[in-house]
C-alpha cells in the first residue's frame, strides 16, 4: 500500500510541476489519436455506408473480413507494418519507421475495421427502417444519403468512441513501429511501459493519470454529444 500512496503523491507532484517531457508525450498521443481517427473516419464512413446499403457480389465476404478485423491483435499489425516500413522493406525508402506517421498507419489499420463494421451494421438497419418511407416519397440520392447519415448518427458516434478507445490505449503496435524514441515516438502508453521497466513507478502512475484523464475527457465529450443528438 505504501507504494500506492507514495506513487500517488509523487504523481500529483509531477503533474503539478508540468514536466515538459510529459506534456509533449501527452500532446503526441492526442495528435496520433486524432490523425488515426480522422483518417479511419474518412475511409470507414463511406465504406461502411456502401457495405451497409448496396448489395453486390462479395459484400458478405468483405463484411466478415471487417468484422473479424475488429479483433486484430495490435502486435501482429505492428509487426506487419514494421516489415513493410523497415529500411530494407518494400516501403523502406519512405523513411517512415520509428516516426509518428508509422504509428498512425498502424492505428488506422486497427481502427478502420471497427468503424466500417459498426457503420455498416447501422446503415443496414437504417435502410430497412427507412425503406417504406423512401418508397412513398420517391427521394433523390442526395436526400437519401442525408436521411441515412442522420439516421446512423448515434451508432456513428459510438463507433468513434470505440475507435478512440482503441487508439489511445494501444501499446503493442506503437512500441514496434514507433520504437518508443524519446522526444519523437514516445506515447503515453509506451512511456508507461518504459517507466515501469525503469522502476520509476511514480512517473508511470503520473502518466497513467494523464492517459485516464485524456481518455475520460474525450469519451465524455463524445457521449455528451451523443446524448444531445438523441434528445433531438
Amino acid at each position, binding site marked *: 500500500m505504501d507504494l500506492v500512496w507514495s506513487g500517488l503523491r509523487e504523481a500529483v507532484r509531477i503533474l503539478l510541476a508540468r514536466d515538459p517531457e510529459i506534456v509533449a508525450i501527452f500532446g503526441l498521443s492526442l495528435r496520433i489519436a*486524432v*490523425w488515426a481517427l480522422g483518417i479511419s473516419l474518412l475511409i470507414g464512413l463511406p465504406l461502411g455506408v456502401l457495405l451497409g446499403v448496396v448489395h453486390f457480389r462479395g459484400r458478405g465476404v468483405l463484411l466478415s473480413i471487417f468484422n473479424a478485423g475488429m479483433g486484430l491483435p495490435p502486435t501482429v499489425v505492428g509487426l506487419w507494418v514494421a516489415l513493410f516500413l523497415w*529500411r530494407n522493406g518494400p516501403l523502406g525508402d519512405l523513411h517512415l519507421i520509428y516516426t509518428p506517421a508509422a504509428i498512425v498507419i498502424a492505428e488506422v489499420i486497427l481502427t478502420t475495421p471497427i468503424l466500417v463494421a459498426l457503420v455498416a451494421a447501422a446503415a443496414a438497419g437504417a435502410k430497412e427502417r427507412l425503406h417504406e418511407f423512401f418508397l412513398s416519397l420517391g427521394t433523390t440520392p442526395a436526400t437519401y444519403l442525408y436521411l441515412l447519415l442522420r439516421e446512423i448518427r448515434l451508432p456513428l458516434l459510438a463507433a468513434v468512441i470505440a475507435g478512440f478507445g482503441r487508439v489511445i490505449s494501444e501499446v503493442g503496435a506503437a512500441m514496434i513501429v514507433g520504437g518508443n524514441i524519446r522526444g519523437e515516438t514516445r506515447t503515453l502508453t509506451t512511456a508507461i511501459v518504459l517507466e515501469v*521497466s525503469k*522502476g520509476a513507478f511514480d512517473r508511470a502512475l503520473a502518466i497513467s493519470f494523464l492517459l485516464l484523464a485524456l481518455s475520460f475527457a474525450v469519451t465524455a465529450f463524445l457521449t455528451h454529444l451523443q446524448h444531445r443528438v438523441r434528445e433531438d
Partner: protein
Amino acid sequence: MFRTIAVKHRWAVAALVLWVAVFGALAGCGKSTLQSPLSESQASHAESPQPTPAVRDVVLATTTSTQDTGLLDYLVPIFEKQTGYKVKVVAVGTGQALEMGKRGEADVLLTHAPSSEKPLVEDGTGTNYRLVMYNDFILVGPPNDPAKVKEAQDLKAAMKAIAASGMGFVSRGDDSGTHKKELALWKAAGVDLRGQAWYTESGTGMGQTLLIANERQAYTLTDRGTYLAYKDKIDLAIVREGDKDLLNIYHVMQVNPEKYPKVNAEGAKAFVEFLVSPETQKLIGEFGVDKYGQPLFFPDAKDERGEGVKSCGSRVVGTP
C-alpha cells in the same frame, strides 16, 4: 415545421462541431506530427551552429539496460549537440539489437554479449568494434538465502546451489545479453534446465524480472545498474558478486556500410568515436554517482583488449 428545422439544425451543429474538432486538430497538428525529416532537419539547422550532416538520423540499436539506467538519456543529447546528428535510440534486448544489425536496420549497435558480437565482426556485418565500458552482473535472491548461495566456494558452486535447492530462479528468457550470460553460467555449472519446475522464464526486461523474482522470493541474475535502480522497491539481496565470469562488457560497433549501403555510415562512425573519446569516457565514469553513491558503468575504451577489466572485481564490488 419550425420544430423540425430546429431539430435538423441542432444535429447539424453537433456534427459540425465534431468535424471541426477532428479536422481543425488535423490541420493544426499536421506540421508537428507528420513533418518530413528533411524540413525538420532544416529547421533545426537554422538554430544550430554546427554543419548539418547529409543524413541526420542515426539509428542506435541497444540493450535495455543502457536506457533503463538513464545512461543514454544523459549521453545522447550531448552527442546531438556536438555533431548535429539525431540519434534514434531503439532499446531492445542484445539479441534483437544484433539481429537489427544483421539486417542493416540499425546504423550502430551498443550491446553486451561479446560471444554473440564476435561472429558479426568476423562476417563483416559490423566494423569499428570498440570496447566502451563494463560493469558487472550479480546474483540476487531472498535476503535469508535459503539456497545457501553465499556459502558457495565459486560461481559454479553458487549456480549448482540454486539448482539443487529448487527455491526458484527467474530467467529473462528474452535472448538479451543478461539472458545469454545466465545460460552460459548454467552451462559452465553443468546444470540441465530442461523441464525444471524451479526455473521460470519471464520473457520481459530486467526491471520486470526483478519484480517477479521479488514476488516469488526467487533468485535471478541481474546487471548491477538495474538492481541499484530497483533496490528500494524490492526485498532481494546480493548473494554472489565479483567473479571474473560475472563481468558485463559493453561494446559498440557500426554496421558495415560496404555490406549495407543504406546505413548512415558517417553518423554511426561519429557515434562510435564519441563513445570512446576521453571526454565521454569521463562522463560515463561519473554517471550515477550522485544518485547511487557509486558509478553504474566503468569506462574502459582505452584498452581495446579489455585488460583494464582484470581489476574489476575489487573496483565494482566496492561498498555502495
